């Protein structure tokens, strides 16, 4: 049986960035820029979160001659996971408030 280890801080930051607007689907690049993660750190986190069912990935067909893009959205399990965590720091609440307003 696979153990579910606690998520790292960057992984929780990714979940929180997605939770800022749960209805919005996000591209990997945008998400990485928002939480200040480079591709080498971002993709292993996205894979781990998707494996644990905390985010949902879907495909957006690419324009002519370009490959499709992955879009990410917080899942119901991801929302429950975040709700069970301690409240986010004041700095993150402020960022989240600025983004949502």
């Amino acid at each position: 049986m696979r153990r579910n280890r606690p998520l790292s801080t960057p992984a929780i930051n990714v979940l929180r960035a997605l939770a800022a607007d749960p209805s919005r689907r996000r591209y990997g690049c945008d998400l990485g820029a928002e939480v200040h993660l480079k591709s080498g750190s971002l993709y292993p986190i996205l894979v781990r979160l998707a494996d644990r069912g905390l985010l949902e990935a879907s495909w957006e067909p690419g324009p002519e001659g370009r490959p499709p893009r992955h879009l990410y959205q917080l899942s119901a399990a991801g929302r429950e996971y975040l709700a069970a965590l301690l409240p986010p720091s004041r700095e993150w609440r402020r960022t989240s408030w600025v983004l949502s307003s």
Partner: protein
Amino acid sequence: MGALVVGLAVAALLVWVARPPRRRGVPGPAAMAPGDGPSRLLGWAVGALPADRAPWGQAMFGELHQMDNRRQRWRFAVGCAGAAVFLPSRRADSAALAARLVAAAALACAGLVAYSLAHYPAILTRGNTWPVLAVFTSVLVAYTAIAAVLVRRGPVARTGLVSGLALAAVWIVAGLPVVSQASSPAYSLLLLAIPIAALTAGAAAARRSGTAAVRQQIALFSALVAGLLIFLTYAGDILLTAGGPYDAGQLRDFPGSGQPDLATYAVNDSLGSAMMLLLLVPAVTAAIASTGAGIAARLPRHGTSPS
């Protein structure tokens, strides 16, 4: 010269194993890449992804294609390549176990040779010992790396391990009487069991998988396992018997060998043969097993058309 040939052969095998595979249902990296450096780098790294992670490789390509800045493309591709190389498969349990077993077998092979060198230190005084040891170590590292890549690529671990064990058993049961009773033609017939077993292993791989790539990977993985197990058995036997029983050729050549005693000479001689087998067995077995898998894949199955 021999070391160079072996090195080139192992390097070619590594390149062949690490080449990006074509996967059904997922556009291949070549189809998505415009052909610049970052795309080629990402294409190679995505090729090393486990089969169940292929969509993530496609997702990385999707983002790379949105970037126009060359520096940004390089940074993104390098990061993704690092992530792809180390991204574990979802079937991590069986794959990781198989990779660890192969690594442990390779380590045991190195340990046996190290023990024999400690027990018979005069072997180290021979001029060609160090180059041979360098090649031997490179081969073990390469086999471990190839096995790790193969188990990440597809469902090869269980079938490959079972086939490898069976092949090693056949090589040992059929090969040892031939070595000890070389003059008897009846024993030579036993050698036929080796290609038959390899063909059967290939056919078993074909029954387990519908794709040619996975069949080849199972054949190669089982051949590596067989090669390592045969070396372990042969080298263990050499150490237990001090290279004996000594044949007429060894007794004849020993006085001119410069070795201090017959046991050192025989252990040195037999370990050299075991190292040759470590190269020969996987190469021969993989070739025959791949042929067997190809033949079995063309045979019609009940209720299916030949693939």
